[in-house]
């Protein structure tokens, strides 16, 4: 009878003698963690790693079928979605996994920031973490390009336009990015190389470095108000804390990571199952221009910011933004490498996180609704509500038709339907007199084009007569205070 247990033990020892890895792995698993750090707040880093693994597995599987050629990519995505058993589910897992990964990486970053974990001696761990965030976002952007559909095509165009505004090197930079003079086969294949080889390789190496530093420096202790980090005594204090309260990472802390990982993977699977894969939308045919390109969720805020920047500020902002956003993140641990770790003693840190979260949230929300975009088909697809044409004279009704035909609705809503680029016009006559309307329509201004060339005098008259009837809930019309006022004719006094 063979002793299986002994055989297994022998095999492990055989491998250990030659690699030394098993013992290292054991040491890693056993490394002492301050018991306060075995917390549910500390699961996000490992969560991001688990998601990275999911992305690697699903990515490799998709790469077995995906065709990184501009002529076939879209068709191969359709093939994966509709012809391969479970192909749709794999694509959905990869897509939702990507969204979850960015979210978890961001949460991890906020947690590390609020817990002061970036302070001495973990400054470089933070900097590598910033690089990991950028690489994760780079994976998301290149991945969005590989979903080679209409949005991807015009998305690359937006990227190229942004790069092209950089002085001097704009043109070579655009060609380098596109791999040629236009968005085409060379563009997709180089984004494929980036998404599949270059960025993941760098990402894995950086994750290794990040982890190595976590193991070497120990997991950040739970911050306590008033406990000050100083270069001179931090390591001694940490060693004392770990000696007194230390628990082995596995299982005391690791079980929470494992439970969180399972919950997260189940959530990704649920999203993938119930919501399905992302696209592809229309084919990447540049001659199909009936499209409203939109970036993926985590880039919507940039899309929104670009809509709100004043034109003259746009190029300076594009040039300065990467520096202004990335540099403070990198410099943070060097600026605030010592001192208080606990959030209750760092009000500025809390304010900064709140401000950034509210800003990004607001811009993302605006990006989802993009009120600055004209509704391109409102003039033909959204009729004027009956209530807004009732009891109008023939001339006014003719004006309503002008209003519709001249695409005014693309930017102006009536009855809540239509574009929101310009103001709603339900009560325009309470804000503007007819003369002001004529001037605004013909000359434009305040972000409205001039319609002087597109309207003849009778159309203009009909239009403004119609607009004059839009008085909301029968409110008072706007009036020129001097209109219709009879001057009082003074007479020469014949008195003394």
């Amino acid at each position, binding site marked *: 009878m063979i002793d299986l247990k002994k055989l297994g033990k022998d095999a492990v020892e055989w491998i250990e*003698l030659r690699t*030394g890895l098993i013992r290292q792995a054991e040491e890693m698993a056993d490394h002492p963690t301050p018991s306060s750090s075995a917390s549910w707040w500390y699961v996000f880093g490992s969560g991001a790693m688990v998601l990275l693994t999911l992305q690697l597995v699903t990515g490799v599987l998709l790469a077995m079928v995906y065709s990184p*050629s*501009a*002529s*076939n990519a879209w068709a191969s995505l359709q093939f994966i979605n509709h012809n391969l058993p479970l192909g749709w589910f794999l694509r959905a897992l990869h897509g939702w996994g990507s969204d979850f990964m960015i979210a978890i990486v961001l949460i991890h970053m906020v947690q590390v920031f609020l817990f002061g974990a970036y302070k001495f001696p973990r400054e470089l761990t933070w900097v590598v973490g910033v690089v990991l965030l950028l690489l994760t976002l780079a994976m998301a952007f290149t991945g969005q390009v590989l979903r080679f559909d209409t949005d991807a095509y*015009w998305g690359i*165009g*937006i990227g*190229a*336009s*942004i790069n*092209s505004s*950089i002085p001097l090197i*704009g*043109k*070579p*930079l*655009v*060609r*380098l990015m*596109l791999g*040629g*003079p*236009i*968005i*085409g*086969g*060379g563009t997709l*294949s180089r984004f494929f190389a980036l998404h599949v080889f270059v960025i993941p390789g760098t990402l894995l190496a950086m994750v290794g470095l990040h982890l190595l530093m976590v193991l070497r420096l120990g997991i950040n202790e739970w911050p306590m108000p008033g406990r000050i980090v100083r270069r001179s005594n931090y390591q001694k204090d940490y060693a004392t804390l770990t000696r007194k309260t230390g628990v082995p990472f596995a299982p005391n802390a690791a079980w929470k990571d494992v439970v969180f990982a399972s919950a997260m993977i189940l959530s990704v699977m649920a999203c993938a199952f119930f919501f399905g894969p992302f696209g592809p939308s229309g084919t*990447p*045919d*540049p*001659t199909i*221009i009936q*499209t*409203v390109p939109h970036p993926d969720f985590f880039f919507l805020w940039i899309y929104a910011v670009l*809509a709100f*920047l004043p*034109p*003259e500020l*746009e*190029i300076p902002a594009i040039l300065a933004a990467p520096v202004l956003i990335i540099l403070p993140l990198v410099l943070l641990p060097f600026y605030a490498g010592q001192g208080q770790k606990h959030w209750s003693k760092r009000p500025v840190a809390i304010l900064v996180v709140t401000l950034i979260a509210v800003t990004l949230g607001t811009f993302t929300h605006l990006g989802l609704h993009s009120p*600055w*975009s*004209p509704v*391109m088909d409102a*003039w033909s697809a959204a009729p004027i509500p009956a209530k807004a044409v009732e009891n109008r004279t023939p001339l006014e009704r003719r004006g309503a038709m002008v209003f519709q035909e001249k*695409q005014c609705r*693309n*930017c102006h809503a009536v009855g809540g339907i239509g574009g929101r680029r310009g103001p709603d016009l339900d009560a325009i006559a309470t804000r503007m007199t007819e003369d002001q309307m004529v001037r605004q329509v*013909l000359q*434009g201004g305040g972000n*409205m*084009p*001039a*319609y*002087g*060339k*597109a309207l003849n005098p009778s159309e203009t008259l009909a239009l403004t007569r119609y607009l004059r009837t839009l008085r909301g809930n029968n409110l008072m019309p706007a009036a020129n205070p001097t209109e219709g006022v009879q001057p009082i004719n003074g007479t020469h006094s014949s008195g003394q």
Partner: protein
Amino acid sequence: MSEHNLQNQSPSTPSDPLWEGTPKEVAEAAPAETTRRGFLFKLALGLNGLVGAVLAAPIVGFLVGPATKKDEEINSWVKLGTLADFPVGKTRFAQYVNPVVSPSDGETAKIACWVRRVTEDSFQVFAVNCAHLGCPVRWFEQSRLFLCPCHGGAYYEDGSRASGPPIRGLFEYKYRTLNGAVEILAGQLPTFATEACNRTPSRPASSEDNPLRVLQNSDVNDGRDA
């Protein structure tokens, strides 16, 4: 790996079973002054660097190849259609196959543009790409405007900026008419970098183009003097 190097590793893992019983102390490293071995190693490193540089030239050359092409190598005249395809006073959607293509381009090699025939023999050919961030602008005949779906850039029929985030008018192709055909000089994605020199006026100054001629003091003077 030489035995010397292997032994150098051992102190870092002193309790590793593989190194049990091996001498922990390693002979003192050679003194700093140049030895034959040290010199040869440096020489080898130098040689390696040289080979590396020679190898880097084609690798970097391949990588930046697309960026170094000159405009003249890319742009060429492309036929859009015959004169009859473009009625005077109208703006028409046209498409062509890019003159520079790669085998895997597929339908991305097709490029669209807007052709405006201003008079019998003058044209304007606009890129479909908005001068803001390159989204495809659409022509609205009724309001005589180009509108961009992305951020709401708007342009007048002559391509000049009407409103929204663009800082300039639409990108314009150079065109010519040859043997009854309309041709444009095309080949690359119209962006700020490739088209910045071809700036279109933000609004025509001539009075015949502008329906709302702004009265100038000089106009008034002219009238009085006449």
